[in-house]
């Protein structure tokens, strides 16, 4: 394990930057489509499902922090090798990274293209949008984690500013009776949306163990930053879902493809400030950009680790090419995407976000026991 990815071990970001990255990663592409799925299954109780999902996710954050702190100087791929043995660990890492590359960044990229072509620029070909967005992402990853962290610090005030504007300007249209009746069909219908929220926002956070806690300069504050970032991101999603239910109502929220975008179209201040949704879309691009960049960074570092490479940068440009290619292949249609996102994405993320860390934890406990006896 010596000598590989030495350079990356020296890159450090502050716990504050890590918090912002966790927040943006949690919001990611979820901000676009989460209200729709939540309202589809839970109707007017979607907000309860979202709160349940975000709060329930804290247990899994605790689990990831526990895994990260087992060997604080190692990243996830090194942990695999350490705990499961060299060859089993390496093959597991490779399968994990390969499928994560296809399911994580490639599908998030699909949402970028689909969102822009269906809402803002209908006659622009999708591949051109994917290629342009990929170039920006690969540029960010090429410059390294420190640059990503600093740029997140610069971007977050803009994100918060736009988010506040949205909340303030749509709030006069709130219709409070839209939430009633509360829990009319009991707790069962809100379980699936809560799990769906976990699968989009919480389980993919496992990939951040590639930088947590080994790349964070202040390791004492790192767990707190993880929790805070997650809760801030979850809070943004809860507010979005609540506003969608209160303003659009569960029916329109469930039917529209990107309900939060429909929501900002409703902004109307004194018949004067209207149709500012294209400015608001900047918010989406910031969160999607950081989710994609972190995915790509973590996967590139992981692959370099598995193959004992000294540098991960040479892999980035071909990876970008594959990303632009696969983002066009993975979802042939929106109907396919919606079926896949519930039927396969949820079980898949449960396997990487629940079973896989539990496997690592079990292996660690077994190792520590056999060492002490």
């Amino acid at each position, binding site marked *: 394990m010596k000598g590989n990815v030495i350079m990356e071990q020296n890159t450090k970001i502050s716990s504050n930057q890590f918090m912002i990255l966790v927040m943006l990663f949690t919001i990611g592409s979820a901000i676009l489509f989460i209200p729709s799925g939540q309202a589809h299954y839970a109707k007017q109780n979607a907000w309860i499902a979202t709160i349940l999902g975000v709060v329930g996710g804290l247990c899994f954050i605790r689990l990831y922090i526990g895994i990260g702190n087992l060997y604080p100087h190692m990243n996830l791929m090194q942990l695999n090798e350490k705990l499961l043995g060299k060859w089993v660990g390496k093959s597991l890492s490779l399968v994990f990274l390969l499928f994560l590359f296809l399911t994580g960044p490639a599908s998030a990229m699909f949402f970028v293209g689909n969102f822009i072509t269906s809402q803002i620029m209908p006659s622009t070909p999708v591949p051109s949008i994917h290629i342009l967005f990929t170039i920006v992402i690969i540029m960010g990853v090429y410059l390294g984690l420190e640059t990503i962290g600093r740029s997140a610090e610069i971007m977050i005030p803009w994100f918060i500013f736009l988010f506040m504007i949205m909340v303030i300007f749509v709030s006069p249209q709130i219709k409070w009776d839209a939430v009633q009746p509360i829990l009319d069909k009991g707790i069962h219908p809100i379980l699936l949306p809560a799990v769906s929220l976990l699968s989009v926002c919480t389980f993919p956070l496992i990939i951040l163990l590639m930088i947590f806690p080994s790349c964070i300069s202040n390791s004492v504050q790192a767990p707190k930053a993880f929790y805070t970032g997650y809760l801030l991101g979850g809070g943004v999603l809860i507010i979005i879902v609540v506003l969608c239910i209160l303003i659009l109502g569960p029916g329109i929220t469930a039917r529209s493809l990107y309900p939060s975008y429909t929501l900002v179209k409703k902004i109307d201040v004194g018949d004067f400030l209207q149709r500012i949704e294209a400015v608001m879309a900047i918010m989406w691009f910031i969160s999607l950009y950081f989710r994609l960049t972190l995915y790509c960074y973590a996967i590139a570092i992981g692959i370099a680790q598995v193959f004992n490479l000294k540098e991960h940068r040479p892999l980035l440009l071909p990876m970008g090419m594959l990303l632009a*290619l696969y983002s066009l292949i993975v979802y042939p249609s929106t109907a396919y995407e919606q079926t*896949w996102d519930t039927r396969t994405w949820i079980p898949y993320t449960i396997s990487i976000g629940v079973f896989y860390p539990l496997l690592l934890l079990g292996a660690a406990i077994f190792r520590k026991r056999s060492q002490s006896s």
Partner: protein
Amino acid sequence: MVPIIGILASALLIAMIEIPNLLKKNLKREFWLFSILLLIGTVGSILKSLNVNLPNPFDFLTAVYKPFSDFLFGFLE
């Protein structure tokens, strides 16, 4: 024809950016992995631009996770 020229040009550009650096530092393993990924990317993109149906990895995942998915949704729905 135009997409193929574009793909080949970008592949060439990527190779021109990375290969001199890789050879200078004598990073053999990086060189091989880089070349394999670039080759897959270029060939795949050309096939895609010719509208060839490439295998979708998501179909594979759907098949693998079918039993677990059925179990889970039997419980959740």
